[in-house]
């Protein structure tokens, strides 16, 4: 429903996107070492809450899935599950080099290399580790996308579910997941 074109937004959509932009509940999935940057981002020094960014404890409440660092294949299964449990509209931020191209674990037998093959990523933050400033700039980037109505990767996931599933199943051999039907 969210249109790609900024001009085409109705007034209701504009207000909705405005509220979404200013209220981001983050599910910080501490998959890797990047999780250590999150406390710094949230607390007094960098204070992400002034952008309306706030932690959420469960995927049901969260808007943003933040993948902090490398993803082992075993963890990937859980991440996919968490992503599918989140409610639309939802966004993913890949955090650190490991989510982009595997980083220093590019040749490891159990660490995936490119996150966007498995779940759609809205914003990548590069660096190893990205500093809190970089994290916040990533969030601001995401806010821009939301306001423009272009952060609709969740819809993309739904449309191209077969492609994503094929990639996921290539890694997760014993596929035992509930259906994703929306």
């Amino acid at each position, binding site marked *: 429903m969210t249109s790609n074109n900024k001009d085409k937004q109705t007034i209701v959509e504009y207000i909705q996107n405005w509220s979404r932009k200013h209220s981001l509940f983050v599910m910080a999935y501490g998959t890797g070492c990047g999780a250590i940057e999150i406390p710094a981002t949230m607390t007094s020094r960098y204070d992400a809450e002034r952008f309306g960014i706030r932690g959420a404890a469960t995927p049901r409440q969260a808007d943003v899935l933040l993948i902090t660092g490398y993803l082992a*294949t*075993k963890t990937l*299964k859980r991440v996919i599950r968490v992503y599918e449990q989140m409610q639309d509209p939802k966004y993913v931020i890949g955090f650190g080099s490991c989510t*982009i*191209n*595997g980083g220093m674990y*590019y*040749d*490891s*037998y*159990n*660490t*995936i*290399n*490119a996150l966007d*093959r498995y779940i759609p990523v809205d914003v990548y933050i590069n660096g190893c580790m990205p500093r809190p400033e970089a994290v916040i700039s990533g969030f601001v980037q995401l806010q821009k996308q939301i306001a423009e109505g272009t952060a609709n990767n969740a819809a993309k996931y739904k449309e191209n579910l077969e492609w994503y599933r094929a*990639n996921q199943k*290539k*890694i*997760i*051999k*014993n596929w035992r997941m509930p259906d994703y039907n929306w």
Partner: protein
Amino acid sequence: MEKENKILEAIKVAFNVEGHIAREKRVMITANKDIVSSILLFCKNQQGYIHLNHMSVVDRIEDGKFELNYIIWSPTEKVTIMLKTFIDRENAEMENIDSIWDQANTYEREMREMYGIQFPGLIGRQDFALEDWDEMPPMRRDFDTHAYAEKTFYQRPGREDAKDVREELTKQSGEVIPDFAKKYSRE
């Protein structure tokens, strides 16, 4: 070195195995795989070495062997015994000792998963740290992890130049790299 000698002699007399004192409080023994559990039982029940510190495995691919190490310790003597044994790499199999020490179960499950060593009678889930792994056990040295990663995971372009740049750097700085360090080159 009295204590060390005592335990070494005791084991030598009982089992006719080789061994030496590596340094203070450390006794190294090499034994045939068949008598490993007997030695462990002997040490535990009669010599007071009641604590299993660690079990580890080394892949001696050049010799076609796995080297298994059992490290046990006595709280009264404060002496560590390292018991070493070699088993064949092909169809590797070793006696299960989790009836002697319960915690051996964890180590053995890890070895089974990572090196493919079978322990007959070992109870526990097949999965230890990995999930749904059906390739060669990944810690064996003949498992090519890079090739596996390239085959399994999507490689993002831009990785081709990931080469050892230290030679270039030494040319510029004049720094000398020792021989042993050169082995770490990715080539």
